[in-house]
């Protein structure tokens, strides 16, 4: 098969819509286009039926007992905001403390920051060197003022899978709500809100080959019944949890994407893991001084986060411009700070600057992996040839012993 450039290996950022998902969505743009809230005619009823069917599929995909526990949102950012701010506001009389980790997505961290400005207290538990949170540290952080613990299922940068089931045992025993940002993990690692005692869970379609602009918040209805203060005022849709006309086509696509994950996920993940391992093996065979970021075993099948020591990440991405990946380097963002996730793991800043994140997915091929690995080996060698740090390293100079002038 001929290789087509550019190659997409950034599936943690987003995924292409699967053709089968697109096909399922199309009738809902102009044939079954009704407003799901219209109770007076068939257009509305048909749209509502499609939405209710989708709720059940999505509920099943995350182990929820009923479609009624699914609240549709515009995406996971909104779901995270609704879960954290909505629960904090509702349960304020019970306590003012939240627990989360320092490697959560910004939608979680910045929601917590806002709550802090409103008088809440938040404990940000650091993760271990392998990018996984220590359950004991979560347990220790919980006080009698704690109302919510929020921990992600899988990290978007290093792909590490967090011990949600263990955390769920603790939060349940302590009668604290557990929110899980499950965006990166659904369909890719086991996730079951019932078995794991998760009370709130954020999910999104576009990381599992569904469309952008549609996500959902799972809100437990029994044992315990979770209540939220809505963050969007209007027509009282989604049982008052989230006003706004439902994105019916998006919802149908989301459900189709979940359906495909449930039927094909296990086989697909094994294939993707094979590709990921192949990429890692080929890079390690061709290059020295590589550092794998995140636990080697407890990680998403498609994730490979590697630091190419002595080479800067953005400079490296420029050398592989036909390959879409992302970097923990400062230079890729406006902030000039390297990845906060890698920093939280205790990685040296220079290695954070040298990191690339590969996100392999459904549509990647072995030929693509081989092309990318060979290209990287060649380009990293070239950049190391012009790197003063690599030269110093080869001369046996300890880079940490040098007094670098910060600028």
């Amino acid at each position: 098969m001929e290789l087509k450039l550019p190659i997409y290996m950034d599936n943690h950022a987003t995924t292409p819509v699967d053709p089968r998902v697109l096909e399922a969505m199309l009738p809902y743009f102009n044939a079954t286009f009704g407003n799901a809230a219209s109770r007076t005619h068939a257009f509305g009823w048909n749209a509502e039926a499609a939405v209710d069917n989708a709720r059940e599929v999505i509920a099943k995909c995350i182990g929820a007992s009923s479609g009624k526990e699914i609240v549709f949102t515009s995406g996971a950012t909104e779901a995270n905001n609704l879960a954290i701010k909505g629960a904090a506001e509702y349960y304020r009389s019970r306590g003012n403390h939240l627990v989360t980790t320092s490697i959560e997505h910004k939608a979680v961290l910045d929601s917590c920051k806002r709550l802090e400005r409103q008088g809440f207290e938040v404990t940000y538990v650091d993760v271990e060197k392998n990018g996984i949170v220590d359950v004991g540290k979560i347990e220790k952080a919980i006080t009698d003022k704690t109302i919510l613990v929020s921990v992600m299922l899988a990290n978007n940068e290093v792909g590490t899978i967090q011990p949600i089931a263990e955390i769920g045992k603790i939060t349940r025993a302590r009668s604290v709500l557990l929110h899980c940002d499950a965006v990166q993990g659904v369909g890719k690692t086991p996730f079951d809100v019932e078995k794991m005692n998760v009370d709130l869970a954020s999910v999104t379609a576009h990381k599992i080959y569904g469309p952008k602009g549609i996500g959902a918040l799972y809100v437990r209805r029994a044992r315990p019944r979770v209540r939220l203060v809505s963050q969007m005022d209007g027509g009282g849709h989604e049982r008052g949890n989230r006003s706004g006309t439902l994105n019916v086509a998006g919802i149908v696509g989301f459900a189709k994407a979940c359906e495909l994950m449930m039927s094909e996920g296990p086989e697909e993940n094994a294939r993707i893991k094979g590709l990921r391992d192949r990429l890692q093996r080929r890079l390690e065979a061709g290059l020295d001084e590589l550092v794998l970021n995140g636990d080697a075993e407890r990680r998403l099948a498609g994730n490979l986060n590697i630091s190419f020591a002595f080479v800067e990440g953005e400079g490296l991405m420029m050398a592989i411009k036909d390959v879409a990946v992302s970097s923990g380097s400062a230079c890729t963002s406006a902030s000039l700070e390297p990845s906060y996730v890698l920093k939280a793991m205790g990685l040296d800043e220079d290695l954070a600057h040298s990191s690339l994140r590969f996100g392999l997915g459904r549509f990647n091929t072995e030929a693509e992996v081989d092309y990318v690995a060979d290209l990287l080996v060649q380009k990293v060698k070239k950049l190391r040839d012009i790197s003063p740090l690599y030269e110093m390293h080869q001369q046996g100079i300890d880079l940490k012993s040098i007094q670098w002038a910060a600028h």
Partner: protein
Amino acid sequence: MAYSDKVIEHYENPRNVGTLDSKSDDVGTGLVGAPACGDVMRLQIRVNADGVIEDARFKTFGCGSAIASSSLATEWIKGKKIDEAGQLTNSQIATELNLPPVKIHCSVLAEDAIKSAIEDYRKKREALRALAGE
């Protein structure tokens, strides 16, 4: 972020990559930046008896704009007198390479690297003169 054609050109064909003997009396070395900040430039000059930069070499750890800035810097200072080279400013580099605001620090680093290399060379000469004067 899109790179300018000139940045891409220098990045793909960097000029004057290499290492001069930093212990040599006629060589000045500037090492600026920090690995933790994501860019380190080493710029070296070889100066002849007339104070003219006969050769300039660099190695850079950094993004494409940092590599291009140091490549351009070596190209510009080669053949110039050290006083003249010392007057080169970061804005000249930034303008030539069309650097966007977030990449201006790359050109600043290149200017620092030139100045630091010249200073290192001058210090060596002064030390030699002091020795000769004894």
